[in-house]
């Protein structure tokens, strides 16, 4: 059951809300867990045991680490400083073993389900160089839904306990709910235990206001997905499967449309997800913050799929860059070349690790790895050249805070993003490169009118798209200015408010690209 299924949003969800309000407060988290498991089951059937296994493993590991911690404290009492250090070290080591073992345990399943096929294919390929044929059997496994998301949550839970950022949870049920919470389990946002534990188990009544606010957000998500993304999908599908028949400008337009599609689909899903959780009084972290207003690629990634970027920052970037081997390496550099070069090296190494993993996380395929390294290169180059750019601007008397310069930066960033997403969507790396080649070598603009007309959308579709995009842009600008839109609307007179809702609902029903002749976009991130 996808989040954009009417059955989910307008049948199952209201029923759950009603039940939630009827049952006693203490039962409510259990109800949420049952609902979450039912939801999970509707996707992955008995693969649900894997999310249960993960929950159990991190729960036990958490308990173990916390008991080691309390034992350590007991032992420490009345010891001399020297002995203290030794005791601390042994316990630290034990804790680390528990941590590492459990992470490997969880990552193992992720590997089996997501990367085994890729691994087997590449091993076979390698072996075939030496004359072997189909060295390993190719197995296709259906992965439990959301495994890429909940595994990251599991790891964050473990590491946060290890770092003593949070206390290990005493109740298994709570850990189970944390990993499988139905709004977040399929496509995130990747939450941290410390951030949501208070609200998720609170069991506060669903209020009328939360209910309405939740639905407003859900409707907005449906609008983005059904009116914009599903409509663009027609165009995008044709361009990306049959790119050889189209001119460079048309392919580039395809890349732009795909990027918009991806944003509308993913952020639309997040609207439904966050809106759903909001009804139950649970505030989930935002996953998008108007990414297309970014000044550079590094900023783009702090506004796009935020929870993933944050996860990589906390659990890969800083630990790697401040790890002993990296530090050792960079102290040498620091002495000869100074702090800037040394921290660039340090950050470069860590960034490389982050983007390798980020690429792989999106899927086992070389185009994803390429996508990762593409962004790695852009971010690193951006940082290396920054001082020169600043110097150049001062010399050429360009005000880096002026509006034209800001627009230049934003457009540049968007174009770089479009190119990245082109490789991301292309059917393999080879296709990506040939598309890119066409964009760079084929400037035939005289076909573009005919091509645009032949890509499955007619003039009325383009008008709808333009109006819908302007509407979303307007909301984005308001959000960027931190204007609380829903609060503002709720203060308007009833007639005006309802008119607005009806317009939105009927815009989706009438202008949505669903039903005959349309192929809706499959949930893109659910497969990652």
């Amino acid at each position, binding site marked *: 059951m996808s989040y954009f299924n009417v059955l989910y949003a307008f049948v199952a969800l209201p029923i759950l809300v009603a039940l939630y309000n009827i049952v006693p407060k203490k039962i409510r988290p259990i109800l949420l867990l049952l609902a979450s498991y039912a939801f999970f089951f509707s996707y992955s059937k008995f693969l649900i045991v894997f999310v249960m296994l993960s929950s159990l493993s991190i729960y036990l590991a958490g308990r173990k680490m916390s008991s080691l911690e309390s034992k350590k404290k007991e032992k420490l009492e009345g010891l001399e400083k020297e002995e203290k250090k030794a005791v601390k070290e042994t316990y630290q080591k034990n804790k680390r073993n528990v941590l590492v073992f459990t992470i490997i345990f969880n990552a193992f399943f992720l590997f089996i389900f997501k990367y085994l096929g890729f691994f087997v294919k590449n091993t076979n390929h390698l072996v075939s160089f030496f004359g072997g044929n189909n060295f390993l059997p190719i197995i296709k496994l259906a992965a439990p839904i959301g495994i890429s998301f909940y595994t990251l949550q599991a790891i964050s839970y473990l590491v946060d306990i290890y*770092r*003593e*950022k949070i206390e290990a949870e005493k109740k298994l049920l709570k850990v189970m709910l944390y990993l499988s919470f139905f709004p977040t389990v399929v496509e995130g946002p990747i939450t941290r235990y410390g951030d949501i534990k208070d609200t998720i188990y609170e069991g506060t009544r669903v209020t009328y206001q939360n209910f309405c606010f939740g639905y407003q957000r859900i409707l907005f998500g449906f609008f983005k997905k059904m009116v914009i993304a599903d409509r663009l999908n027609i165009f995008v599908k044709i361009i990306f499967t049959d790119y050889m028949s189209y001119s460079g400008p048309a392919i580039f337009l395809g890349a732009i449309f795909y990027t918009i599609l991806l944003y509308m689909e993913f952020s639309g899903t997040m609207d439904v997800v966050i809106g759903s959780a909001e009804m139950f009084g649970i505030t989930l972290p935002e996953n998008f913050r108007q990414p297309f207003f970014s000044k550079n690629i*590094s*900023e783009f990634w*702090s506004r796009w799929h935020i929870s993933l970027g944050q996860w990589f*920052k*906390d659990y890969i*970037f*800083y*630990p790697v*860059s*401040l790890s002993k081997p990296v530090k050792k390496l*960079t102290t040498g550099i*620091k002495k000869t070349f100074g*702090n*800037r070069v*040394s*921290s*660039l090296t*340090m*950050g470069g190494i*860590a*960034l490389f690790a982050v983007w390798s993993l980020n690429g792989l996380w999106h899927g086992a395929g070389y185009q994803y790895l390429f996508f990762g390294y593409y962004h790695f290169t852009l971010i690193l180059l951006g*940082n290396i050249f920054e001082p020169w750019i600043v110097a150049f601007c001062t010399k050429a008397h360009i005000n880096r805070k002026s509006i034209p310069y800001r627009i230049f930066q934003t457009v540049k960033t968007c174009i770089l993003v479009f190119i990245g997403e082109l490789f991301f969507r292309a059917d393999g790396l080879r296709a990506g490169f040939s598309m890119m080649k066409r964009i760079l070598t084929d400037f035939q603009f005289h076909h573009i009118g005919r091509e645009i007309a032949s890509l499955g959308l007619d003039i009325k579709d383009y008008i709808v798209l333009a109006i819908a995009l302007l509407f979303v842009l307007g909301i984005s600008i308001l959000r960027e200015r931190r204007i609380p839109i829903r609060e503002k609307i709720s203060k308007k007179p009833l007639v005006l408010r309802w008119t607005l809702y009806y317009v939105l609902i009927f815009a989706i029903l009438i202008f949505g690209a669903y039903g005959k002749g349309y192929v809706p976009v499959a949930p893109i991130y659910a497969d990652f």
Partner: protein
Amino acid sequence: MEKLLEILEELEPDVDFENCENLVDGRYLDSLTILSLISEIEDAFDVQIPTVEIVPANFNSAKKIWALIERLQEED
């Protein structure tokens, strides 16, 4: 504190560090700049900043960073 401000200004000359309260959340310091900063602080104040402490709450203003340094110095 003086020394810290000096380090900060050298890293990002455009920012008003004495009054800015959202260095990280406002993206005045990106992650690579934070790395340089950490490395400078570790040298200048002879402390070790563990990964756990690298959260926006500790780096959002010069005052907060200073508080972190003092806390780490005491713990040692």
